[in-house]
C-alpha cells in the first residue's frame, strides 16, 4: 500500500470546509458544505457545521472539528448565563466577542476559524469573522475554510449591498457549490441558515441538486455507463 495515501484514522478530525456568512437587508444568511475529513478519508459526509449559540445567533465552524465543537459548547454555556443575567436576548456582538476571547486567549492550543452570524434588534443582521489567531472583524460578508480561497474573486464580482433574502441565499448556495467543485476538502450537501427578525430558517440542498460547473460530469450509477456511451468527458483522464 502506498504509504503516502495510507490514511491514519487517528489523525485529527478536520473540517476541510467552505463556510460563508452574508448580510442582506433584514438579516443574515449562513452557508456551509458538509464534509469532515480524517486525512484523505471522509469521516462524515453529512455533517452540520452551522451550530446554534442562541435563538438568534449561529456559528459556522471550520478547522479542527474537536476544537471548534468545544469552543462553541463553552460559548453557548456562557451566552446562556449572560442572557439570564441580562434579562433579554444576547446581541450578536457579545456572542462574537466571547468567541474572540476564547480563540485569542487560547491561540496556541486551538486551530479553528469561525464565522458568527445573527440578528438582534439593536443592530439588525450582522456577520463577524474570527479567523485563526483570534482577530475579530465585522464584515458585510465573510468566507472561511479551505474552499474559501476559490471564492475571493467570485465575491468581489458578485457581492452587492442591500440584496433580498432570496438573492442572498442563492448567492450563498452558488458560492458553496463552486467551492465544492474545486476544493477536495469540501463536499457533500449545502446547508444554509437564514436569520432575521421573524426567526430562523434552515435549508438543505442535496449534492445532486447543485448546479454542475465547467466539465463536471453528471452523477453516474456505474463507470460502465460512461465508458460504453460515446462521450468526450473521460478522455481527459485516459492518457
Amino acid at each position: 500500500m502506498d504509504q503516502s495515501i495510507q490514511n491514519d484514522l487517528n489523525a485529527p478530525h478536520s473540517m476541510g470546509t467552505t463556510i460563508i456568512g452574508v448580510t442582506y437587508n433584514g438579516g443574515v444568511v449562513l452557508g456551509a458544505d458538509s464534509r469532515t475529513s480524517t486525512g484523505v478519508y471522509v469521516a462524515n459526509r453529512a455533517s452540520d457545521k452551522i451550530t446554534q449559540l442562541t435563538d438568534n445567533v449561529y456559528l459556522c465552524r471550520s478547522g479542527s472539528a474537536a476544537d471548534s465543537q468545544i469552543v462553541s459548547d463553552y460559548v453557548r454555556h456562557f451566552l446562556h448565563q449572560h442572557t439570564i443575567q441580562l434579562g433579554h436576548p444576547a446581541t450578536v456582538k457579545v456572542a462574537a466577542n466571547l468567541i474572540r476571547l476564547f480563540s485569542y486567549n487560547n491561540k496556541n492550543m486551538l486551530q479553528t476559524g469561525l464565522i458568527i452570524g445573527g440578528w438582534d434588534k439593536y443592530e439588525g443582521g450582522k456577520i463577524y469573522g474570527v479567523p485563526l489567531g483570534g482577530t475579530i472583524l465585522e464584515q458585510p460578508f465573510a468566507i472561511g475554510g479551505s474552499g474559501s480561497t476559490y471564492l475571493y474573486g467570485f465575491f468581489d464580482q458578485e457581492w452587492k449591498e442591500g440584496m433580498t433574502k432570496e438573492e442572498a441565499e442563492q448567492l450563498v448556495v452558488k458560492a458553496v457549490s463552486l467551492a465544492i467543485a474545486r476544493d477536495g476538502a469540501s463536499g457533500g450537501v449545502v446547508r444554509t441558515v437564514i436569520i432575521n427578525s421573524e426567526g430562523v430558517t434552515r435549508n438543505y440542498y442535496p449534492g445532486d441538486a447543485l448546479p454542475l460547473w465547467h466539465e463536471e460530469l453528471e452523477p453516474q450509477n456505474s463507470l460502465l455507463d460512461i465508458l460504453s456511451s460515446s462521450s468526450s468527458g473521460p478522455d481527459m483522464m485516459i492518457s
Partner: protein
Amino acid sequence: MSQVAVDVPKGGFSFDLCRRNDMLAKKGVQQPSYRKTGTTIVGLIFQDGVILGADTRATEGPIVCDKNCEKIHYMAPNIYCCGAGTAADTEAVTDMVSSQLQLHRYHTGRESRVVTALTLLKKHLFNYQGHVSAALVLGGVDVTGPHLHTIYPHGSTDTLPFATMGSGSLAAMAMFESKYKEGMTRDEGIKLVTEAICSGIFNDLGSGSNVDVCVITKGHKEYLRNHLVPTPRTYVSAEGYKFTKKTEVLFTKITPLTEKVVVLEGGDAMEE
C-alpha cells in the same frame, strides 16, 4: 472568564514524559508496542432503536493477543459503546464514564441519556488532546429516542444514522453505503451489521475472529455475544491431544487438617 483555558487536571496523566519519548524515538530507541484493537466497529439506527456491532480480535503489533475479546462496552442499561484504538484506553474511559453515569442516575433519579454519555466522553478526550487513543461508537435509546454518535480521540463528535470506526471502517462503510435504508426491521438491521463486520473481518488485517452484536430498543437490550463465527477452526484433531508420557505418581501422603488445627468451642468474647 478571560482566564478560562483547558485546565490540566491535577494528578493523573503527566505530559512531561512525552518530550522524552519523542527524543528517544528520534535517537532510534524502539517504543514498546501496546495492545491495539485493530477493529471494525459499526452502529446503525433501525426503526425501533440502535444496533451496534464489533469484531473480536485484539492485536499487539502483528500478533493476535486475544481472539475473542469484548469490544462492546456497557455504559448504562440503555446505552452501549463500541471502542476502537488502544484497548486500555477504551476500557478505562468507558468504565469511568459508565460509573459517572451511574452516580448521575442516583443524583437525578432518571434514566441516563445518550447525550450525557457523549458530553462526558468528549470532554475527557478533548482534555487529553488525542493522547487517550479511544475512537468510540456510542449508541442507545433514551426518553428522547434512539441516538448514535461517533467520538474521535481528539474529542470531536458526529451524529449519524449509521457509522463505522476502526481500521476496518472503510470496508464496513462500503457495505453500509450500498445497503443502508431508513426504517429497517430488526432482522434486516442485524443482517446488515453482520455483513459490515464480516466485510471488515475478511478484508482488514487488524480485524478478525467473531461478530458481536448488541440490539438496543426502548426498555430492552439484547447482547448477542459471538452472534456469528465466520472463521471457525477447521482442523481439530478428533483424537485430542496425546501426551507421550503420563505423569508418574511417586509418593502419596494425606494429612487430615484436624490434627494440625485446634478448634475451640465457645471461649471468651473479645474485650478492649
